[in-house]
Structures are given as C-alpha cells and as structure tokens.
C-alpha cells in the first residue's frame, strides 16, 4: 500500500489499498486468539480519540484496536455545544499539535471537519464519522464481515434498509461493497431513500421486493434516537413497515440470508428480539471484526510525525 497519512473517505482509496487493509485485518484478528492479545507494532505511538458527537462503540472499538497495537490512547472530551464554530476546531488543532499525537480519530456532526483537521496537522487522521458524509472504518468492518462469512464479496447481494439519505454508514458501506463487486440495493421510507439515478444504487420499495431480489445480506440501519417516538416516526409503525418482524425473520431464515446492523440495535424497531438470536445474525461478528479492521487501518497509515530520511 502506498504511503497514506489519513483515512477520510473510501473514495480516496485505491482498490489495492482496500484489499491490503482487508487482508491485513485477517492477520490482526488472529492476534485475538493468542495468549498475549497484543503486538508491539505501534509501541510508543500516541492515539487520540476526538469525538465531538457521542459514541461508545466506535470510540471503544478504536481504543481497543490501538491498545492491541501497543499504542497509548488519550480520550479528548469535548462539549458538543462549544465546537460548532469552525474557529474552535482550529484552536483544537493547535492544541493537538502541541500534544504531539501520531494518530487522531475524529467524529464530528459536520461533514468535512476530519478533512480540515487532516490538512492542518501532521498526525494521521481517521474519520470516525462526519455528518452524513462518511464512516470508512465501518465500511471496512462490514466488508470484512461479509468476506469472512461468504469467502468473497464479488457477486454477493446486499440490501441496506432504513434512512439512507442521512446515513454515512449507508454511503461508505455501499461504496466499498460495490468497489469489491457486490450488488447493493437500498430500501426505506420514501423520502429517505435517494432515487437510483442519483446514487447508481437500485431502489427497492417493499419487503416483498426485497425477498424477490433475494439478497445474501440484509443490512439494517439504526433509526436515530431523535426520530424514534417523534409523532411522525412512531417506532411500532417503523417496525411493521421496515423492520425485521418475526414473520419476516421466518422468511429470512428460510432463505438463509444474513442480518447485519451497525449497532446499537433498537430492539423492536429495526430488529425483533428473535432476530438477534438468529444464527446468521452477524451483529456480534461486526463488533469483533471492527477491532481487527481498525487495527489494520491504524497499522497501514503513515503519520507525518514519523521521521523519514
């Protein structure tokens, strides 16, 4: 893989980069089975998690990944309200530069902030989700999980169900899967699924169409908390129309399809309780593979803080 400082989007990666990161993730996952679940590859390196948006899973997944590579991890806590202005991001960058961090993992509710930080500091910046723009590490763990399950991604069919329009997961994951040769379709509430002519991704309208299309994987997006129980978005209605109900689960089982979800799952909204126990529900695999994929990303990036020549 060519030297690369940052990971902001899947678009910025070559096919070779994508394959290298996925291949190395396999070797990273094997570290979990050793008696010492750690390797010295990033010993003495500093990793900072800078989350302007609340997140438990992604942040801890990156932290575990960094620890398993023997890096030192610092958590930077920020109040969301004080950082909406672009200026304060620049001030934060100055602070980070002084802390001599080698890797900075950023999540921000505004698209483009990780790219701004990346341009202004020599640490490697990893986008851990920016607005509705991109979430590349999620894309890698999803691709890794599907590849692990099916051996190959090319030719597999994946339908992504939910609020596609506002989802960085839908954007990054559909992109990486299509780059790797999968067929992707979207399904969700009418106004929240962009038409196919804009995305190049086929749009399905109902579960009937989904079952007819016969995907290998049904990928449910999380319904944002603020939308649940709003008068326009009652959870029970969403579950009946777009969720995996017990009746749909039986059809999914009959066809042997896999279920994926980026977590945390709203039980009774995207998935019924029984779906979580289903043998081809890959949600827990996604969590474990998330650590391996993030280890591989951290390992393959080259911070500008390392001295060369």
């Amino acid at each position, binding site marked *: 893989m060519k030297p690369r400082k940052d990971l902001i989007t899947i678009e910025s990666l070559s096919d070779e980069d994508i394959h290298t990161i996925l291949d*190395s993730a396999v070797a990273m996952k094997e570290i979990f089975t050793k008696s010492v679940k750690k390797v010295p590859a990033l010993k003495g390196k500093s990793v900072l998690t800078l989350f302007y948006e609340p997140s438990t899973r992604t942040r801890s997944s990156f932290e575990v990944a960094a620890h398993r590579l023997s890096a030192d991890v610092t958590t930077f806590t920020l109040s969301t309200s004080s950082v909406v202005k672009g200026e304060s991001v620049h001030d934060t960058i100055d602070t980070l530069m002084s802390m001599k961090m080698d890797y900075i993992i950023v999540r921000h509710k505004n698209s483009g902030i990780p790219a701004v930080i990346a341009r202004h500091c020599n640490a490697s910046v990893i986008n851990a989700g920016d607005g509705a723009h991109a979430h590349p590490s999620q894309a890698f763990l999803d691709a890794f999980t599907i590849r692990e399950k099916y051996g190959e991604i090319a030719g597999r069919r994946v339908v992504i169900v939910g609020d596609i329009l506002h989802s960085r997961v839908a954007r990054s994951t559909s992109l990486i899967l299509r780059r790797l040769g999968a067929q992707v379709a979207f399904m969700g509430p009418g106004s929240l699924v962009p038409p196919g002519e804009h995305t190049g991704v086929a749009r399905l309208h109902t579960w009937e169409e989904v079952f007819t299309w016969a995907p290998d994987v049904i990928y449910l997006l999380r319904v944002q908390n603020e939308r649940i129980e709003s008068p326009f978005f009652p959870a029970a209605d969403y579950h009946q129309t777009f969720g995996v109900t017990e009746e749909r689960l039986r059809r999914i089982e009959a066809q042997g399809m896999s279920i994926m979800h980026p977590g945390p799952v709203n039980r009774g909204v995207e998935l019924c309780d029984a779906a979580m126990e289903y043998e081809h529900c890959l949600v827990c695999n996604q969590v474990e593979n998330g650590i391996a994929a993030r280890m591989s990303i951290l390992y393959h990036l080259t911070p500008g803080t390392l001295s060369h020549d």
Partner: protein
Amino acid sequence: MPTLNSTDISTALEQWADVIAARADAESLGLVGLISHGDVLARRLIAALEKRQVQARYGALDITLYRDDLDLRKERPALRSSYLPFSTDGMHLILVDDVLQSGRTARAALETIFEYGRPARVELHCLVDRKHRELPIQADYAAFTLESAEKVRVHLQENDGEDAVIY
C-alpha cells in the same frame, strides 16, 4: 552467478531432517517457519521427519508486527496470517528461516513466539547463514554458509516455481 540447484537443496533438507531427528524430543517437537519462505521449508522438513518416524507440529509465523524497522519504512508491509494452532508451553520449537543475516528477523520471531506460550526450548535453523550479524544471535543449524556472498536469493517451488539459491 553461482547457484545451488534443487538437488543440492533436497540433499541438504534430508541431512537437515537427520540432524533434527537425532536431537529432537519427539514428544513435543514443533517446527515454526517464518513467512514467507521458512514456512515452506518447515513443511518440507516435517514431511522428511515423518519418513524418519518423527512427528512434529507445524506452525508459521508472520513477524511483521514485531519488526524493529516499521517506523523507518514509508509503507507498512501487508500482513500474512500466522498459523500456530497449539500452545507452545513446554514445546521444543525450531524456528525455520530461509536466510539468516542480521539476526533482526530472528529477534522479532523470538519475541513473537513467546506471546503464544512458554516453550521449553527454542532453536534457530536456517537454509543459508550469511553471517554479518548485527545482534548476538547464532543459528543452531545452517544447511549452507555463504559468508562472502553479496546477495542471496532463495527460490522455492511452492512460492517461486523453482528450487534454487542464487548468490
């Protein structure tokens, strides 16, 4: 360019297997090849040992994450999967590599192997010893010693389509 051909290499492997068979503790012998040529040599040695009624476990190690020069490289090498499906506790392990030179790979391998358990004994065997050591590490067995060679390249059938040592 002088070359060792496939006959030289297979003769050497037979002698090598004799040496291992003579001093191995057959109860707990493991041959751990260093990827990406040592693993091939380890597999061949295990086959040769079987003919001598000596059983050895097979392992393969990718030592990349333990290298001491990761920060000196602009690109991080792609990783290969290690394969060590047994606890190394109490084992007699033989690390198998194609070329031993600086000793830095062997150092990394030693560090790696101890994260899989506590072996009773670890030896270092290689196909070619080039000397020029940079660390206090020596081979317990070397099939060939090519001290004056400028450059040594090992080709093995399984990886490169032919058996040859070119120096």
